């Protein structure tokens, strides 16, 4: 019981962290109180929402102070002349400070680069730009140039002067009474030095790729299976009508689906324009858009599931016709069998997709087959009005009329049947 309470308290605490950060954004900016609030808010945001670098990365022990060796002539230098584009500067530094044999090396034209803590004494005057990596820059004297730190703070002591701009990545500027001639820019989090401790991500192995893809395919088809089971459970008659429409009018379904895809956007445009022009319809516009999108999704997914159902039913009936003993030939089974067949294409890609050329061919085939069948399913859903209209489902008489009594009392073949008044009327084409 106490464990549960502790867990609940921890969870509440973790959930309240972001809201606490946001809570500080509301200020009443009047006078110095407002300024203090702004800075208070900022401190809170930085402490709470900063990336891991801001939290602990800056606290790592700094390396032994030393000069950074210049980079080979083949590599571009990092100019600190213009710090007005800090993101560009960050990417340049990231490239220059990437891991290499013999440690980091960087060339700063008209300046110096230092690793570890660095201090400018009160009687010192340093001319040129200064780059300090993984160290704190303490300025007691004068720096006639720009100052950039990477994962390190800048402390400007009373009397200290930096004539140019200051830019920090993964640090902060503490102005304790010094003078800064230029602009101060501070990123409290930075990814500049992540490259130093992290190697280039290796390309995933074939096994890992296969595993990831198989997991993805299984996930997608399990989701489709769950949706299909729901459809069978709550809308089997409609699913069966759409499925039968695909089986009996595949070409017509495909053509309808293709046309439907082409007309999706124009129809949507007409709907929107029509509602706007009707003035009153403007109110309904958001709902109409949502409903339209939902209907399209339902038609596409439902049609695809109906294709799976039709494939499963055809396969199962053929096996039954061949005398195979099948436990329960029902819609659930049809759906599983059909989805399994559809998944087979993608499973083949999952397993052999890494093979050059062949993998791309398999993927192309899987996409093509999925699109063909999806289009047919979408078309069947449109033709049958989501399974309401069985005109193209190959049902000559309504299923509800096929009772035992009807079949027993009504001659189906021969002269008697032909002479019967009001003989069965095909519903096809109505």
């Amino acid at each position: 019981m106490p464990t549960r309470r502790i867990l609940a308290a921890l969870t509440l605490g973790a959930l309240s962290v972001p809201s606490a950060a946001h809570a500080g954004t509301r200020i009443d900016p009047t006078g110095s109180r407002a300024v203090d609030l702004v800075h208070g808010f900022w401190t809170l945001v930085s402490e709470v929402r900063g990336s891991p670098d801001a939290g602990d990365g800056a606290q790592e022990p700094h390396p032994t102070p030393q000069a950074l060796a210049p980079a080979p002539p083949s590599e571009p230098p990092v100019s600190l002349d213009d710090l007005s584009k800090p993101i560009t500067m960050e990417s340049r530094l990231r490239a220059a400070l990437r891991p290499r044999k013999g440690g980091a090396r960087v060339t700063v034209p008209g300046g110096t680069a230092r690793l570890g803590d660095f201090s400018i004494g009160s009687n010192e005057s340093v001319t040129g730009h200064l780059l300090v990596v993984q160290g704190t820059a303490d300025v007691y004297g004068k720096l006639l140039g720009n100052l950039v730190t990477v994962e390190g703070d800048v402390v400007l002591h009373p009397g200290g002067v930096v004539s140019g701009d200051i830019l920090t990545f993964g640090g902060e500027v503490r102005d304790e009474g010094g003078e800064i001639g230029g602009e101060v820019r501070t990123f409290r989090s930075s990814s500049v030095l992540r490259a130093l401790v992290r190697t280039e991500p290796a390309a995933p192995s074939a096994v890992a790729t296969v595993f990831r893809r198989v997991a993805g395919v299984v996930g997608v088809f399990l989701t489709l299976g769950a949706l299909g089971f729901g459809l069978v459970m709550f809308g089997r008659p409609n699913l069966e009508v759409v499925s039968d429409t695909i089986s009996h009018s595949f070409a017509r379904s495909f053509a309808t689906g293709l046309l439907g895809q082409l007309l999706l956007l124009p129809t949507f445009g007409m709907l929107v324009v029509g509602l706007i022009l009707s003035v009153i319809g403007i109110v309904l516009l958001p709902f109409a858009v949502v409903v339209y999108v939902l209907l399209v999704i339902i038609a596409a997914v439902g049609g695809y599931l109906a294709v799976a159902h039709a494939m499963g039913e055809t396969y199962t009936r053929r096996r039954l016709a061949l005398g195979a003993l099948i436990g329960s030939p029902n819609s659930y089974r049809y759906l599983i069998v059909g989805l399994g067949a559809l998944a087979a294409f993608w499973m083949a890609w999952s397993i052999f997709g890494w093979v050059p050329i062949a993998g791309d061919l398999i993927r192309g085939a899987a996409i093509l087959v999925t699109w063909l069948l999806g289009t047919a399913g979408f078309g069947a859903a449109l033709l049958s009005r989501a399974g309401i209209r069985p005109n193209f489902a190959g049902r000559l008489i309504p299923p509800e009329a096929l009772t035992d009594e009807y079949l027993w009392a009504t001659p189906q073949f021969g002269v008697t049947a032909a002479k019967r008044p009001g003989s069965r009327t095909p519903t096809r084409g109505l």
Partner: protein
Amino acid sequence: MRRLHLAAMTLVLAAPSAAAQSMRPFSTYRQWHGETRIDARLDYAAGGLRLAAGRPSELYRMDVLYDGDRYLPVSDYDAARGGVALGLHASGQRGLRVVSKGRLRQTAAVTFSPKSDLSLDVTLGAVDGDLELGGLRLTDLALEAGASRATVRFSRPNATRCRSATLSAGAAELSVLGLGNSRCDRIAFEGGVGRVTLDFGGTWTSSSSVEVKMALGEVALRLPRQVGVRITLDKFLATFEPVGLVRRGGSYLSPGYDQAARHLDIHVTTAVGGVTVEWLSGER
């Protein structure tokens, strides 16, 4: 069961840091070195924005928490012309991310020194803004709001005379409060669709002329009694209720307009919508 708890805890604790990965805090400021004037351009694409007078020792400051995947902070001071460009620009990166929008909410706090004359040019995209301009030395104001909800306040009198304030809004909800404190000689507002509230409260030290153009929407005028108000209207399918105003020719005047020491002349042009007049509490 323990494993389930552990997994749930890991997910809960990892969630904030996952969102924080793309949110970056950035600060920029410049010390005040006796600058008498600054031309500031603030271009803020999206998020929450607060603007106010800041520390006298800082010419300007911007503290922003921004979406590092989609936006770039701008901070560029031009010493030659005494101008600064601040804000957030879209980086052009697109794509779908499965992250709660609220967790990627950008916020910015921008302050300017109350010791330097300020010419302010603000462009807002999809912004929830609160701009407190009272206490600054505002000489010019240009505000352009896209799909924003913004409040511009002059809670305290402007420390210097303001030549003009030009406000424009696309599909926005804009409230400008305490225009009497703005000390602007000329105020112009141009709106597309939405609702605008122009509150002329505050301390009036001079006369002013106001031009309001609104295509489709509602204009709410909150008028003071201590100045003479004249409203001229150019409307098409708009309604106007001249509460407390007397019609003279093509204008609507407040009682005692001719005798008033300071005048507020408002010309409203609107196509579709309504213009409402409200007298400030305690003013009548």
